[in-house]
């Protein structure tokens, strides 16, 4: 394979992908960075002027920013907690011998394929709705007062919805990891006198460590950008109670037309995502060498 001819051809074949991604990365990124230093509002065209770090100052000192940052962390952390623990247990269960394993797998994996707007809307109207929602019916049946999930606990409700969407992802990947575990290792551990619990703790969990890390990192990347679920269910409200960073920037730039402020927020979001990305890239990079 390694002839001079093929090397030249290889370079040619790879360049469209590289150039396109380079453009996709650099052009909007440079524009965001540039706008973030401008006073730039679409309602006041022609008034753009250089303002240095003012946009950052306004964005960061806005009390909504702190709430949004906290909400972002709670959303990411909450969903991760539910999906990783739930996913591990579920994968462990699905790895056991049972009847109709394939069908259960299909049932469990299904929510992942439901588009975000559908799952948000369905949960909002059919389950969480305090009048006609299924949960309200059940509460009524048991003689309890109906609970207004999205009004009273908007963030927790969104965490629930998002966790429902991502639990299958974690389960599927952890199940795959379980299945790649060498059965002889477990049998050896059993011969060595390890109980079921210590087999899980000392053999299975270390084997899963890598898959769990991958699940956490990949989910984090996606969870930092949760948008449609919030847009459809609460619009970030009540107030800013369920606004995350992505949604805050969307409101600032596209609803309030403050391009400069929104861009400053965008730069902050990029920095946050990069911190996660560095860890993820290390993980996958290691795998590439193996």
């Amino acid at each position, binding site marked *: 394979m*390694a002839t001079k001819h093929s090397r030249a051809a290889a370079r040619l074949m790879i360049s469209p992908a590289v150039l396109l991604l380079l453009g996709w990365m650099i052009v909007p990124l440079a524009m965001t960075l540039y706008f973030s230093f401008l006073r730039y509002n679409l309602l006041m065209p022609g008034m753009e002027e250089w303002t240095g770090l003012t946009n950052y100052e306004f964005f960061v000192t806005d009390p909504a920013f702190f709430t949004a940052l906290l909400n972002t962390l709670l959303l990411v952390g909450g969903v991760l907690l539910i999906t990783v623990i739930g996913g591990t247990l579920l994968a462990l269960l699905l790895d056991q011998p049972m009847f109709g394993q394939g069908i259960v797998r299909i049932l469990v994996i299904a929510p992942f394929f439901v588009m975000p707007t559908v799952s948000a809307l369905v949960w909002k109207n059919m389950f969480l709705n305090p009048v006609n929602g299924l949960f309200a019916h059940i509460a009524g049946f048991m003689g309890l007062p109906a609970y207004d999930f999205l009004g009273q606990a908007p963030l927790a409700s969104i965490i629930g919805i998002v966790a429902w969407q991502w639990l299958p992802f974690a389960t599927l990947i952890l199940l795959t990891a379980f299945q790649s575990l060498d059965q002889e290792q477990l049998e050896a551990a059993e011969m060595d006198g390890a109980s079921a619990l210590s087999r899980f703790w000392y053999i299975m969990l270390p084997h899963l460590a890598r898959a769990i890390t991958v699940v956490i990192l990949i989910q984090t990347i996606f969870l930092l950008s949760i948008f449609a679920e919030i847009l459809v269910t609460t619009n970030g409200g009540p107030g800013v109670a369920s606004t995350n960073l992505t949604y805050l920037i969307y409101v600032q730039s596209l609803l309030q037309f403050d391009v400069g402020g929104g861009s400053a927020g965008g730069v902050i979001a990029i920095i946050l995502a990069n911190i996660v990305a560095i860890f993820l890239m290390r993980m996958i990079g290691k795998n590439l060498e193996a």
Partner: protein
Amino acid sequence: MGRIVLNKVRKSFGEVEVIPPLDLEIEDGEFVVFVGPSGCGKSTLLRLIAGLEDVSSGAIEIDGVNATSKRPSERGLAMVFQSYALYPHMSVKKNIAFPMKMAGMPVAEQEERIAAAAKALNLTDYLHRKPGQLSGGQRQRVAIGRAIVREPQAFLFDEPLSNLDAALRVNMRLEISELHQTLKTTMVYVTHDQVEAMTMADKIVVLRAGHIEQVGSPLELYRNPRNKFVAGFIGSPKMNFIEGERAASRGAHTIGIRPEHIDLSVDPVEGAIVGKIGVSEHLGSDTFAHVHCEGIGLMNVRVSGEADIHAGDTVYLQPQEHNLHRFGEDGLAITL
């Protein structure tokens, strides 16, 4: 026909020179084995002949024609790979037919050759199976079948037996040797296993770090190794090397003696090497003794037949003087 001449062939990957300039002639119809430890460049050399790698400089001549810049498909060679490299999506029949299809051979003739090859290789019942449904030995046969139908100038084998179990390996070794006797086509065979080299080759090329250490028939290499490396590499169990006074007294830096050229006695013998048996392996036909000798270290000794020796016994070793190999400080053999 299948005469292959390498003229000052050199190969480097970037800064690293894998094969320094090297000359070699492979006669038509010869069975040549490249042997050496892993990383010695033997596979690279084969791939240069095949055209799968470009030579950095030098020339390769096949059948009197300069083939240096020819593409693999134009060189008229067939190759059997270590992994067999069968096409997994094609049936056995289609696998064997592939090179003929590429050459645009009429279908009737293809059928004829496939049938002949399948018969010779015991594959007739498996022609419609996919490679995934075959055993290792059968896959190996398909790979060979795919090579012979083209009637190439020469066959190239890249460690073809290393994925088979021991029993099958002995069988296939015989089959390939028989194939060579029938076809009388040049074969170039790469292996790290000196037993394969000794049993199959007309001519062995011993390689180390891209250098040719020695070229010769199996028994030439066994009798007259040119240096310590070849002496240690050819023959099993390995040749024993002794340094120091004993060597100096025979005018050498190191002397070498093969395990089968040592007389072992349980009764004291004047001037013999005294040692204690560590492990003795009783095979019936032979007995191998690992003897710890004072001032020398471990010596391997082979005794023909069933010998009554056991771990812990004190034994007296006498190397057969006329079978001694003498080496100088540079590792080269000293010829008398």
